[in-house]
């Protein structure tokens, strides 16, 4: 199979939008909840679009346009989106009206933009793309499932280009709900926030930010299953654990959520430097999209910001060549991704 490249990757987040300024000058947050920092939408959207589209849809279309512009790919073969909660703002408004006013006089506008696939279909609608179109909504691995689907179709030759996105919006009231179940907020670290990441993947480009070497996903794996999967993944990438430049995990400082990450590192990668990203990009069901985005830019620029390192293993002295990305939730859903720097980097 020909290699698959991440040709471009863009984000809107707690950091400066549509920019890699966070690599030199990250914005730090010490609050339990903050919304993403939006770019100047006027540069990207007509006034009518700005009025009509919900926030998550604006962010989705702007990040998609940005990777389209950078790559010249305007009609990808596939559009794949992961979203944990979908278009929450519209869902909430419809639900609130239903609970407050009962079952009469409900406006169709919020319902029409409330389904999870509103985002991916908007991207198809705006880019006039009739190809494969799908949305995944599965907790913390929603984005990973979208990426795995793209990866699968590259492998079987169905597609040569793909737009893969991770999107979530977090309203103040939904933050309260997620705080109630201990997912974010409370007295523990981490800023509950939102996600908007677009990746443009291509088999055709000879260049880009990095190569997507391979990936695996597992559900409730036994230790043996995890070990076998890890071996097969590293074998496929022709890597040994020691040869990895670093492992990027989703640790956030929240003890219970971090425990499986710490166990995983101690058991399989005790000698490999470890990286984190949620301290800058926040907590969200689709936060793992920022791991891929951030890792791709670190590999492209040949350097990893100091603030990303955690754990006892010191950084390697040479520029990063290969990164393993681990995303897990509740020790149940697991996603493992290997990215590699391109020659000359």
């Amino acid at each position, binding site marked *: 199979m020909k290699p698959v490249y991440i040709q471009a990757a863009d984000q809107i987040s707690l950091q400066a939008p549509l920019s890699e300024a966070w690599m030199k000058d990250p914005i730090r947050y010490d609050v339990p909840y903050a919304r993403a920092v939006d770019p100047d939408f006027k540069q990207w959207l007509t006034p009518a679009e700005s009025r009509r589209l919900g926030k998550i849809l604006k962010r989705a279309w702007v990040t998609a346009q940005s990777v389209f512009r950078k790559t010249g790919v305007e009609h990808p073969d596939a559009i794949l989106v992961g979203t944990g909660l979908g278009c929450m703002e519209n869902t909430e408004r419809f639900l*609130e009206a239903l609970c407050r006013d009962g079952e009469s006089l409900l406006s169709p506008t919020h319902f029409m933009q409330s389904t999870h696939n509103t985002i991916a279909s908007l991207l198809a609608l705006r880019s006039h793309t009739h190809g494969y179109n799908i949305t995944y909504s599965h907790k913390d691995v929603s984005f990973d499932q979208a990426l795995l689907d793209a990866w699968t179709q590259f492998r079987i030759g169905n597609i040569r280009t793909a737009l893969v996105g991770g999107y979530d919006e977090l309203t103040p009231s939904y933050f309260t709900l997620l705080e109630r179940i201990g997912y974010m907020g409370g007295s523990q670290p981490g800023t509950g926030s939102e996600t908007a990441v677009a990746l443009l993947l291509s088999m055709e480009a000879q260049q880009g930010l990095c190569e997507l070497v391979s990936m695996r996903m597992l559900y409730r794996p036994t230790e043996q299953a995890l070990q076998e999967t890890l071996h097969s993944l590293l074998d496929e990438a022709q890597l040994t654990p020691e040869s990895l430049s670093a492992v990027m995990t989703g640790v956030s400082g929240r003890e219970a959520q971090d425990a499986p990450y710490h166990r995983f590192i101690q058991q399989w990668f005790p000698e490999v430097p470890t990286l984190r990203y949620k301290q800058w990009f926040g907590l969200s069901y689709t936060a793992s999209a920022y791991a891929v985005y951030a890792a791709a830019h670190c590999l492209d620029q040949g350097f990893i910001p100091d603030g990303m390192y955690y754990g006892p293993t010191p950084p390697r002295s040479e520029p990063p060549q290969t990164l393993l990305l681990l995303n897990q939730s509740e020790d149940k859903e697991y996603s493992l991704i290997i990215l590699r720097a391109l020659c000359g980097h």
Partner: protein
Amino acid sequence: MKNPIWITGAGIVSAIGLDKLEVLDALLHGRSGIGPVRYLSTTHTEFPVGEVPLSNEELQARLGIPAGTPMIRTALLGMWALQEALQEARLDPGLLPQTAFLSGTTVGGMDKSEQYYPDFLSNDTRNDYIALHDCGSSTELIADHFGRFGFVATPSTACSSALNAIIVGANLIRSGQADRVVAGGSECLTRFHLNGFHSLMILDPQPCRPFDASRAGLNLGEGAAYLVLERPETALARGIEPLATLDGYGNTCDAFHQTASSPEGEGAFLAMQAALQDAGLTPADVDYINAHGTGTPNNDSSESRAMLRLFHHQVPPVSSTKSATGHTTSASGAIETVICLLALQHQFLPVNLNWKEPMEEGIIPVQESRPQREIRHVLCNSFGFGGNDSSLLLSKWQKS
């Protein structure tokens, strides 16, 4: 030639039956499951619905889940259908770690969220249901009831979710990432989407009449269905032969409007065309189409247009079984795939109920269940909001 994908098990629950035998009997006798609301708590009793004739408590008891366990109806319906599929394919818990589970839904835990939302906002009494609100939770509840699946995922493309789950599963097998998958979807009725469809003015207060000149909207339904898909090798290792084969599929986007279909049915046309190409077949090979056929003026005219274009006005027998089950939204793609499977196995054409008068430039749907020729290849259409249009091609199993 692509590697064959065998269908080795199927399970279904819907308004016309709690298992495949009951569904088959209802289809053969032209029985509809659409009637007045019994279980959903709604003031809109003017709209008939296709409900699964069991309460949550009854489902929970039959599944052996202790009373008082926090549960959502989408998960209960999913478990019920999955049980039948696993039994038929003889998949015991020991085989689940080598099996992927893909379950499409959009509603997820909304049935409880809409009931407890004021509590969600103001107190801690219903936190279990906050954790069950999202789509992925229903998939995990369903999966975990039976053991330890090796991979689970939740496609959510509105009304085509379950059909897309089957496509995702088939791609996992073709790419060699999975030997075996169980795929489909589950969706219960909620006030949320009943009112949503009502706000779009596409619910019919009469029994729906897909492809009829007088059609005036859809009736909502609920249910779940799953299919076991695998490579022949793994099925043969258990001494199992297929019920049918999944030979082709297409997923496309109409890219026309957020909730309406294009007049020319571009997405539908491309999806059916892709499924045929994928299977290496021509339009003349198709013996039956299970249409998306919701009964809305827009869908049925757009889908008719797509079929007339693709089949050059030589359209094979078509019917919409939503006239019997109601529109089971995210589950409909899997429910109708199981109906196609039954049509192939038992060689009958499911009748399109309530049809009287042809629509302008429309197809004439099936009125007589006895087929004119052998049913070897069938297409199953499933379309969703946002123009998420997909189509599958299933073939009768023929021992070579």
